[in-house]
Each structure stands twice: as C-alpha cells, then as structure tokens.
C-alpha cells in the first residue's frame, strides 16, 4: 500500500494506513491509506458501494454496529487510535472532528428545534459557559449565513429551506470548533445555486484553517474545493493525487470512465458510457420487433450486442430525426394552484415528434406538477393540453384511455412505482395486456378493434424482447424489483414504459438517484431508444449538465413560470434571463480535459 508521506513540516491531523473495515466477514474497506493536514481539503470520490462513507465514519469510530476496523497505523490528533475505547472516541467527536451528512431534514433531529441541536454540541463539550450557550448558538447561526438567527433557532428543521437546514447542520458540526470537518455528500440533496453557497461556506472554513475531508460522488463538486483526491472503487483506492492532476490527466481507466460519464455541454451527441450495456440481446426473437411506426428493423440496425465495444465519446449508432411539423404533445397557458399557492403559472410548451424538451428548475419550481399535467393525471385550472392535436385535458378519463398507451412515465425512483410482490416479467407485461395498439394510426382512428389481447406466449416473447432492448437478460424477468440494482430497476422502468410503444416519454428526474456511471448508461439507453423509435421526450431534471446533454430545446422554470425558453445551446451559452444566468453560473465544472478521455 502506498503511504501518504505528508511533508514533515506540516502537522498531520489524521493519518491511517491500510485501513480495513469489515461487516460480519465481508470487507467493505480494503486497505485505504489517507492523511489530512490542517487547512487541507482531501476528497474521497467514488460511487455507491465503493466504501467511501464507511471510510469516513470509521475515522470517528462510527463505522456502525457489527463493524470491525483494523489498520496498519491509525493516528488521530497525535494519538494512536487503534487502542481507543468508546470514551476516547466520544471526546474526539464534535471536538476534534465535526460530521456533516447529506440532507439535513433527516440528519437533524426533526422533533427538536435547530437551536437545541446546536446547543447540544456546546453542552456536551462544555465549549462555552452555560449562560453563554444561547448567545453562542446565535453567533454560530449567523456565522454560517443564517439570516435572523434568533427566530430561526426556535424553528424546526422542516420549517427551514433545504439550504438553511444544511447551514444549520454545518453550524452544529463546527460548534465546538473542531480542527477537521468530515462532510459526507454535504450538497447532494441541494439545488445547484444552494450547492454553490454551501461549497463557498465550506471553502471559507478551509481558508480559516480547518481541515476538510469531503466525501462525494460528484467529481465537479470536488474539483472546485479539494486539494487532493482519492478515487475509491470496491473498497480500494484506485488513484490519488493533487485534484488538478487526477481530474485533468487521470491515469486509471476507472477514473477516466468516471470523468467521461459526466454529462455536460461537451458530451452532447456522444455516448457517455464505455461498456456496452446490452446483456442477453441475443434473446431477442427474430420475428418480433419493438419498433414503432417505422416498420420492422433488421438486426443490422440494432446496436451491437456484446461484440463491438462502444467507447465513450462516440456518437450514438443511429441519427436523430426531429420533425417540427407534428406536435405530439402541447400545453397552452397551463395554470395549477393548490389553495393560494400557484404551482404552475401560465406555462406553454410544444413537444415535436422525435424531440427532447428539457425542463430545468430548482425544487418547488413546478416541474413535477407540469409533468403531471402533461400526463393527464392532473387537470389544469386554466389552459389546455393536447396529445396528437386532440384534447388531452378537460376530457373525461374514458376519453383519454385509448390514448394512454401513447404517453408513458419514467420516474425518479422506479421502486416506488413497482408493485413490490410482482416479478419484473409481470411488471413489464401488465401494460401490454391492457391495450395493444398496432400502430399510431390505428390508435388515432380510435378503433377499439385494433386492440387485441396478446396470447401468453406472445406476451412472454415481448417481455423478453423489451428486457433485451434495455440491456437486461431474460433471467431478470423472474426476479423481484428489490433484488435489482438502482440502474437495473431504472432499465426495467424504461422497458415497462416502452411496452405500449409510446410516442411520448415523460421522464421526471430519471437519473437523479443513480451513480454517474449508471446514469451514463441510462442516458445512453434513452438516446438509443429515441434514435431508434423516434420517441419524443419531456425530460425533467434539476441537473443542468444532464439536461444540456440530452435536450434539443429547454424551458427554465422558476416559481411556476417559464423564465427562459429556447434552443439548448442558446439557453446554456447566452441565457437572457437573470435567473437562468445565475443557474448556469452555479453549476460546478470539471477542468476541461476531455481529450484525455478518448482511449
């Protein structure tokens, strides 16, 4: 194992060599060496399951119940941590190192006021005399940029915005003036402008001499603040070094694939993932084709299965054809209010055949309500929606039902939309048995006779076909959604949505819960599907990089209104509205070095 030899002049706060953490026999951290010096920011980057969070928590003796922590050497604040008992660890926690977790809504006690949470740290470590605790709490809140601290201190976490809550969490972590802040995904649940504020706040602490250990899945976040980066995979360090070097000239293939997987302006029109996602594509039956409209496709047109390895950066296999002539889905002057709160305010949009319309905005901007209006799940208070130039809002559900198969939803968390006791095969087969419209024209003439029920065998073939299309093998059909990984589940959701051969896919944050490499595969899959079937997509995301990567046109929403609309390049390079400019400016960026990605 490599040992981080810190310069001898610098006092090391924390140094671990060959750190290993195992849970009931399974080793999840397999020999990590790291050190942190005062005023330094070290980042651990990795995807879920890489062991980065367990590593961070084991540095506070909080690896969790049933964990066994071993190390070649483990020194904290000049003491040997290998012999620490519970009392030793407790005295270090909060005092030597403060912990900031993701999502303060659950990381702060929801039943206590935020003032009490901060005061608790002061009390435990006797940081200030009892009489000064309230005063100190308010000072801390002010120091992390919480306005009107006296009023905020009496509020509960759910009464504060996401950004303010995260500031409170940071205030509680720094209350006893620790030398080290361990921040585990501190900005992951936040909107991009709020993320920028929190990163600035952490950078200020670092400038003040506090050391920072940052755990993140987001390379761009790390790029803006870290001095050194460790890239972790499967419990091991695959690469480490100064941030600039690791991110602009990565040596390890895994680091390179991670960097290539980040969607951005530069990645438009290219593949993000390197490995071919198709598994078991051979299971596709020759006779059946999932093609919509364009007639059956030959095997030669299909993406290669297993044989040809596609490389990130390549254009997708089939070109895109956007036909501006035919608006598949349109909304005019849509408004929706809940009580006195207007959630969607006079929004109009048009989605053409084969086109992707990106909708960006921060939480509470009305994106998801707009998606529900578009899906005909919610009636607008004013305005109307049309699907294939037929009224889609303001009609009884019975009138909508024949057209329902033409518009499908892919949501952020597919697990919530799956019946937990059904197998994957049954989940995908369900929409198939409701209605099978042979083609678009058949459905538009609304002939119920065009719908017929599939036989068991046909349905099974179609399920396997759909699974193969999204890169899953036939064995997945017999499994339950819980047994699948996040990426596999989202593939199943896509297969289910493709089943009725829709013309419109409404994608509501479809990749927000996924790791960057899985996100890359899913985005590539969606691009392939669009290229192959000409499906139009309403693509909703808070992630500007993702929207930039996939969209043809973009709507920027704020407080229920569309503040900017236009071609994707225009919106992202020359935004007109002040909010759109702020949004684009707040996106953390990677150093520009895409040339090194191409192998």
């Amino acid at each position: 194992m490599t040992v981080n030899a810190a310069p001898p002049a610098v006092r090391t706060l924390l140094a671990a060599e060959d750190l290993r953490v195992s849970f009931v026999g399974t080793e999840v951290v397999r020999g990590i060496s790291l050190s942190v010096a005062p005023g330094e920011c070290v980042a651990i980057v990795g995807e879920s399951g890489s062991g980065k969070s367990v590593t961070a928590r084991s540095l506070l003796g909080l690896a969790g119940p049933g964990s066994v922590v071993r190390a070649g050497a483990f020194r904290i604040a000049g003491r040997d941590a290998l012999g620490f008992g519970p009392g030793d660890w407790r005295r270090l926690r909060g005092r030597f190192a403060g912990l900031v977790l993701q999502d303060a809504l659950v990381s702060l006690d929801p039943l206590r006021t935020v003032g009490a949470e901060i005061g608790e740290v002061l009390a435990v470590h006797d940081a200030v005399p009892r009489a000064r605790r309230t005063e100190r709490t308010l000072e801390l809140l002010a120091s992390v940029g919480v306005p009107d601290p006296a009023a905020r201190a009496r509020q509960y976490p759910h009464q504060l915005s996401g950004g303010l809550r995260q500031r409170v969490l940071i205030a509680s972590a720094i209350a006893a003036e620790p030398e080290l802040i361990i921040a585990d995904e501190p900005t992951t649940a936040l909107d991009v402008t709020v993320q920028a504020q929190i990163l600035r706040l952490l950078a200020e602490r670092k400038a003040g001499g506090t050391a920072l250990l940052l755990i993140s899945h987001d390379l761009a976040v790390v790029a803006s603040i870290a001095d050194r980066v460790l890239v972790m995979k499967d419990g091991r360090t695959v690469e480490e070094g100064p941030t600039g070097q690791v991110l602009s000239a990565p040596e390890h293939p895994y680091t390179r694939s991670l960097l290539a997987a980040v969607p951005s302006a530069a990645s438009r029109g290219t593949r993000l993932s390197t490995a071919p996602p198709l598994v078991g594509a051979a299971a596709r039956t020759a006779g059946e084709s999932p093609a919509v409209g364009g007639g059956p496709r030959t095997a030669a047109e299909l993406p290669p299965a297993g044989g040809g390895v596609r490389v990130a950066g390549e254009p997708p296999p089939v070109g895109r054809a956007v036909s501006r002539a035919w608006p598949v889905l349109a909304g005019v002057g849509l408004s929706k209010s809940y009580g006195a709160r207007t959630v969607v305010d006079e929004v109009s949009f048009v989605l053409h055949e084969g086109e992707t319309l990106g909708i960006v905005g921060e939480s509470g901007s009305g994106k998801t309500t707009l998606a529900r209006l578009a899906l005909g799940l919610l009636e607008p208070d004013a305005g109307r929606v049309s699907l294939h130039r037929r009224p889609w809002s303001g009609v009884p559900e019975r009138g909508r039902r024949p057209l329902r198969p033409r518009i499908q939803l892919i949501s952020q968390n597919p697990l919530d939309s799956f019946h937990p006791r059904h197998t994957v095969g049954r989940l995908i087969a369900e929409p198939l048995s409701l209605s099978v419209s042979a083609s678009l024209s058949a459905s538009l003439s609304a002939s119920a006779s065009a719908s017929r029920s599939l036989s068991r065998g046909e349905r099974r073939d179609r399920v396997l076909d759909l699974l193969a299309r999204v890169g899953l093998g036939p064995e997945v059909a017999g499994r339950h959604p819980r047994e699948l990984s996040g990426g596999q589940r989202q593939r199943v959701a896509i297969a289910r949505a493709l089943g009725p051969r829709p013309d419109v896919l409404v994608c509501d944050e479809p990749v927000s819960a996924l790791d960057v490499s899985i996100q890359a595969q899913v985005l590539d899959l969606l691009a392939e599907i669009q290229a192959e079937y000409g499906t139009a997509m309403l693509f909703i995301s808070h992630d500007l990089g993702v929207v930039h990567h996939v969209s043809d046109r973009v709507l920027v929403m704020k407080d229920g209104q569309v503040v900017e609309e236009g071609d994707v390049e225009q919106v992202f390079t020359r935004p007109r509205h002040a909010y759109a400019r702020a949004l684009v400016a707040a996106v953390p960026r990677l150093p520009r070095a895409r040339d090194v990605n191409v192998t």
Partner: protein
Amino acid sequence: MIKRLGTGLAVMWAAATASYLALLLAPGDTVDILVGEGADTPEIRAEIIAEWGLDRPEAVQYLDYLWRLLHGDLGRSYQLDRGVGEILASQAGPTAQLTLAAAAIGVTLAGVIAVATAGRGRWLRGAASAAELVSVSVPPFLIGILLLSVFSFTLGWFPVSGAAGPQALVLPALALGLPIAGVLGQVLRGGLERALEQPFAVTARARGLTERALVARHALRHALLPAVTLAGWFTGALLGGAVITEVLFGRPGLGQIAMQAVTGRDMPVVMAVVLLSAAVYVTISTLLDLSYRAIDPRIGG
C-alpha cells in the same frame, strides 16, 4: 377544538343509542325483571308499567331517555332501587385507583424494559421479547390466578381479595398492567431501534453524545409517537380488563357493578356503564391526540 367536541358528542350519542337498542332487543320482559322475586299480581304489574312509563311507544321512551340523559339523569336501577348516578359515583373510586395503578405499572415497565434492551445483544432482546409475548398472549384472568396462587395462597404476601389498603391493589394492578407492558414495550423498543438507525442519530453520536444521552434526548421522543397511537387500544384494554380483574380479586368497583347488572338484566346500570366508558374513551383519546401534537411539531402546523 369545536370539531373534536362535536365528534366526542357524536360518539356519546352513538353509545347511548346502541345500548338502548340492545335493551330493546334483549330477551325477556322488563316488567318480569322489575317484578323480580316480589309478589306477581296483575295490579302490581299495572302499577309498575305506569310508574316506569312502559306503556308508551318505544320511540317516545327513547327520546325521553335521551332527554333525561341530557339533564344528567341516568335513571334508576331496576334491582337496587337507587339512582344509577349515585351507584356509579360510589363505585368509580376503586376502579379509577385500579386502572391508574395498572396504567402506571404498564407504562413504567414498558419504558424500563425498552430502554434497557433496545439495540442490545441478541440474548437480552430475545428474553425481553419472549416475556412480552407471554404477557400479551396469556389472558389477564390467568395472570391474575397465577399471581394469586403464588403471592397470596402460597407466600401470603398480599390479601386474596377486597380493596382494603394499598396492599390489596398490588396484585390486581399487576394482572391488569402486565399485558399492557408487553404490547407497549414491543412498540417502544421498535420505535427506539428505528430512531437509533436514523441519520440524525449518527449526527448526534458524531457530536460526542453517549448512547444513554442519545436515547434520552432524541430517540425516546421518536419512540413515543407510535406508542401514542396505541391509545385507543390501551384505554379499551384497561376498561375491559378492569371488569374481569375486579370480579377475580373480589374488588368493589364499576366492573363488579357491570357484571351484576348484566347477569340481572339491570339495563339502566348497564347502559350507564357503557356511557361512562365511552366518555372516558373520548376524553383520553382527545388528550393523547393533543399530546401527539406536542411531541411532533411536524403535525398540524
């Protein structure tokens, strides 16, 4: 608050009406009961019918009953020839003592066991779990008989029956409180263990809190939420269990009165006991509903 009061009144009215209907449907003639062991002549029967107004149509009798209820008149007992209100007032004291003592035992035991065993080793948890399961599944009268045979008949520590002094309260309160401790203990421990796995518990530990402080200052309050939702069951178990326990231990109280009234078909008393139970139920669930809001600031507001 007004809505809550309305709901409470509706429950009371439903209880009054249901018990009145039960009276109508009950087999046997009211006059027979009123005549009882006394002389049975047509003259006496006519006198009784006139005195109790039994010749009026049933709807009129029902409305008259409700009207008298509204004025706080619970009627007269058929058997004891005393005002029902008076009977209840004299018997409510011992029952209140018993149920409150049982509730205190149940809540205290549940709390102590849950805090002591939450998140601890397999053996300790398993033992507590088994004890809870036994106390829940064994009927209270059996627990009572066991307690009696061990502590009264064999050891002679406590009196076998009666309500003389605090010593006489120990065994019946235990018999009634143990099943409550069992259910409540399981719910509390489950709540504690869930709370201790939440991200805020990691944050609290990272502040340097001891496990004990974490339970006392954070987790216990979270565990109370599911426990409070058990309020309805809790009240019902106490009231229903009180009847059996009082009879078993020969304690005076509402349970004894209810038992005698049911066997003697003394319907005014039965109905009054039903009404009183409904009133207690409504009051307690309202109080606990309010406490729910005090525990969880996320509710209502």
